[in-house]
């Protein structure tokens, strides 16, 4: 009988396991993204401060009035603080999205099925010790203990599946909209990091390389190497473009999950994008162009 039951349930179990796997993969990618974004926000803030400082220093010689200098510095600081607050608010919301992905992963990957199966088998054992009748009970050719032990994980998988689907249904619109906002955010962050880094690198190059070249006298010892470093740093900013597609692919994966389709964007590739985003963010923040101005 248990064999018949297993045969009947096999297609359901297979689709259940595949669907739980889809939830699990999507959740893992979402968790990685939720960890990566705060690092990107930190790089964006650092880039803004670098560019702003380089411009303040560059303009300082032309603005002699102390009050005017103080005013420029104060206004710049105010805007940087404003950005830091906005980024903090975005980080808080990203942590919340991260908690959602963690919750999905926890339920999809929970080993409650196996644990409950064992507990049920233990209970059947205990009952068998009390009653010889209970010990002799069978479902088909299997003992009650074995049948319960194997049946419970099936019930648990169905339970997890149903609850995950219910949560997905309840949150699909909000999570979908959040991911759309993240796509726009990463697009904006890409523009900001690229733009601010460009300003900071070029200001540094202007002072350390370009002016030295146009002025009379010997060039600094490392002039050639430093010129190459700064030009290459600027060229690498283009790499941001591709990595910043991560949120877009995450949205595609989410739509596929909601519609129970095979994900259009490979989740493995998506994870690679997210990892690249993190390493690029780390590298850019480690390659601060210098004082500039």
């Amino acid at each position: 009988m248990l064999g018949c039951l297993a045969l009947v349930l096999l297609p359901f179990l297979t689709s259940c396991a595949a669907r739980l796997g889809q939830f699990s993969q999507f959740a893992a990618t979402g968790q990685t993204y939720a960890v990566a974004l705060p690092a990107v926000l930190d790089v964006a803030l650092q880039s803004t401060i670098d560019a702003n400082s380089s411009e303040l220093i560059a303009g300082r010689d032309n603005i002699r009035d102390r009050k005017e200098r103080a005013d420029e510095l104060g206004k710049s600081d105010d805007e940087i603080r404003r950005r830091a607050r906005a980024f903090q608010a975005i980080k808080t919301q990203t942590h919340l999205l991260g908690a959602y992905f963690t919750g999905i992963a926890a339920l999809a990957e929970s080993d409650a099925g196996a644990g409950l199966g064992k507990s049920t088998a233990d209970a059947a054992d205990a009952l068998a010790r009390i009653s010889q009748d209970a010990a002799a009970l069978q479902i088909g050719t299997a003992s009650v203990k074995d049948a319960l032990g194997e049946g419970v994980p099936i019930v648990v998988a169905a339970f997890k599946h149903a609850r995950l689907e219910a949560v997905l249904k309840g949150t699909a619109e909000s999570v979908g909209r959040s991911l759309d906002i993240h796509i726009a955010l990463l697009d904006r962050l890409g523009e900001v990091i690229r733009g601010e880094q460009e300003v900071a690198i070029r200001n540094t190059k202007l002072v350390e390389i370009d002016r030295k070249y146009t002025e009379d006298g010997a060039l600094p010892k490392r002039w050639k190497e430093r010129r190459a470093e700064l030009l290459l740093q600027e060229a690498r900013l283009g790499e941001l473009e591709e990595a910043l597609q991560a949120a877009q692919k995450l949205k595609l994966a989410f739509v596929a999950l909601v519609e129970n389709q095979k994900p259009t964007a490979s989740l493995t590739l998506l994870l690679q994008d997210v990892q690249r985003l993190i390493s690029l963010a780390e590298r850019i923040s480690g390659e601060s162009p210098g004082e500039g101005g």
Partner: protein
Amino acid sequence: MPVENEKLARRVRRNLQEVRLAFTDIRFDTALSALPETLQRRAARARFAAALAVQRIDNDGFEAVARQLAAEAPAIQAGIAALDDALDDLAQARAIIDAVASTLNLVGPALGLVGIPLPF
């Protein structure tokens, strides 16, 4: 921010960014240094104003993003609570079955409930 304003803001931002970058060009820098001091000062102010305007446009955008994300938070929080509930339900089911097993193990032999026929 309405889409049209958003587009306009991005266009203005791009132009202001070009102004910022112009100041980092050695040809512009050399030409500027040949101008009278008053003009150099005006140029420095214009540079600062452009940089500040870019920061303000970006900040308006980031604040809007934070507000929009916050608006989606209640539904996501409800989803997290539902996931927690499901995990709690599983844990509770296991706790109940574990308790039944240990009760049968302890109480059964203690009360001499061994070898009794099942009531079904």
